[in-house]
């Protein structure tokens, strides 16, 4: 029946409309605009020509790509540390605790996210600044003679980033660990495997899609994070998003900012692809399993 097929198409179209609008208006359109911006150069007021000058600046100015590489490396380190910290937590929630205790622990992981990221990060600053809680506590206990400044170190930035990302690693890990049949672990143990071998041969292969998904999410969040590195790292943070902010807002150089934005997008895409290649997984599988 032609009418009913037409009806079906209309329904499908209406159902997809919000997603298509979302994608079109908020992602494709601004990015197209950014792309155009990044490939032009201002030669005189209100006069622009197409050029690769913005990208050339990035590669010829050592500061820019130094910050770029540093951001990438710090993000990888933060992602790996988050994984190391989140795995035992997810294991406890998914496998060791049952019922109420398990939900309670999960809620405890969730609670910090009820507070805005700004407030959470400022909380860290109150704890860590020179006249803050931790340095004065250490002095009272006689560990240090003078208060130490904990802020504005790379380690502090990492702590802040891990804290912000933890939940996004824990959730996919829990869901992939929960689907692991306990009898597989018992069977491996029964066949002579020790704890580490069980982890390596049974648990990790099973949880691999969850681990990859968590790592992708955390890596992207970290790479694109602006607030945490800026507040906790201060002038030393040298985060690439700061460079973008500076170009757009301080220097009012939208062309350069757009080029930086695109470079960051390319970086995260390449890193995710490399990560998938190394662990031998496919993006579709990873997203479907979580």
């Amino acid at each position: 029946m032609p009418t009913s097929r037409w009806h079906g198409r209309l329904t499908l179209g209406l159902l997809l409309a919000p997603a298509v609008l979302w994608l079109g208006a908020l992602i494709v359109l601004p990015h197209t605009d950014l792309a155009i911006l990044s490939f032009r150069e201002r030669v005189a007021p209100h006069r622009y020509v197409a050029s690769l000058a913005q990208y050339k600046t990035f590669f010829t100015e050592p500061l820019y790509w130094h910050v770029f590489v540093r951001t990438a490396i710090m993000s990888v380190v933060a992602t790996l540390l988050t994984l190391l910290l989140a795995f035992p937590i997810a294991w406890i929630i998914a496998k060791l605790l049952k019922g109420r205790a398990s939900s309670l622990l999960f809620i405890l992981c969730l609670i910090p996210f009820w507070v805005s990221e700004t407030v959470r990060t400022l909380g860290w600053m109150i704890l860590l600044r020179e006249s803050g809680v931790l340095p004065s506590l250490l002095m009272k206990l006689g560990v240090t003679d003078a208060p130490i400044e904990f802020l504005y170190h790379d380690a502090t930035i990492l702590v802040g980033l891990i804290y912000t990302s933890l939940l996004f690693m824990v959730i996919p890990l829990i869901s992939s660990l929960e689907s692991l049949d306990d009898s597989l672990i018992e069977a491996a143990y029964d066949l002579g495997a020790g704890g580490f071998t069980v982890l390596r041969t049974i648990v990790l292969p099973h949880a691999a899609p969850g681990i990859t998904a968590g790592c992708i999410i955390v890596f992207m969040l970290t790479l694109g994070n602006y607030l945490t590195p800026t507040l906790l790292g201060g002038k030393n943070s040298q985060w690439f998003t700061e460079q973008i902010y500076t170009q757009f807002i301080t220097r009012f150089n939208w062309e350069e900012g757009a080029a930086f934005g695109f470079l960051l997008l390319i970086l995260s895409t390449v890193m995710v692809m490399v990560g998938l290649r190394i662990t031998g997984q496919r993006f579709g599988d990873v997203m479907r399993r979580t």
Partner: protein
Amino acid sequence: MITADLVADAVTKRFADHTAVDALSFSVARGSFFSILGPSGCGKTTLLRMIAGFIAPDSGDIVIGGRSMQDVPPNRRPVNMVFQQLALFPMMTVGENVAFGLARRGMDRAERTRRSHAMLERVGLSGAAAKRVDELSGGQRQRVAIARSLVLEPTLLLLDEPLGALDLKLREHMKIELKQLQAAFGTTFVYITHDQSEALVLSDHVGVMNHGRFEQLGTPQDLYYRPQTPFVAGFVGANNRIVGRATRRDGELIEFSTADGWTLRARAHGSIVVGDAVEGFVRPEAATLSRQIAELPAGQPMHAGQVQSLLFDGANSAVLLQEARTRREFRIALPQTGQFSDLKPEEQVLFSFDPERAACFPARAGATG
């Protein structure tokens, strides 16, 4: 018994509110097929998991191959287990599954491959090594699970209701296959099940378990023909159960009557005096069905009944009667001769059984007719 591969000595395990395994002692001879048969919740899984080492007994000792297993973790016990849902590793091929335990022993790759292929061949799965686990049928997976354990040449193979997940036809087939495998390998099997037919067909010895204890431990024939407790009589094989009070004792025979006045005779087990509450059991195949008095075996007490329904099941066909006066149900196996193929519901018939082949026990607490 000859050398025992498994000895349990007063093994006890308590959970918060109940005793799962209660001071259980038994031994399993080398190379035999031992089954633990019991209803769900009787403690058989707890017992098996204690033998495997996944839980520790509160008291008592488990000795495997002459060595006490106290404080020996599962990965160091000479015991392997076939899990209820088989627990094959989906992230590995069939060959890798079978070679898994060998790799844990530090065997080199070439030897591992050789042995796992040889083992797969012995269970009739040569050429399946490179397949994925989910490409196999239920029966094939079963064989991989057994091969994965047997390749390690364990002293003891534990099987946790491994046929439970299979459909009936395959279960019947795997039953035979399991028995043949056990005979071929000579490994001691400890098998737990709630299915009495599996236990009877497969085992050399069966322990019938209830409330954390063995009600009876013996050969399948012992359990079937010489049950020692009313639980075993009721649980192993089909049985007609009649509850009443002893009215007369005649040597080894007890005459007892139900509350509504049906009188039967059966062989006494345990101490029964006149007036005691008793439980009587008559096997469906122990009774003879007839339309005329003259055709019944001479000298047996005669009973009358009415056909309620015919239960056709090929060679296991039976007829469900109602005793003439009390309307109590009584099941009788139909002879293979086809003599009663024209039997109709509502028909009046006669039946009798040899009281020597019927059993009468002191009634358990709470037993009602």
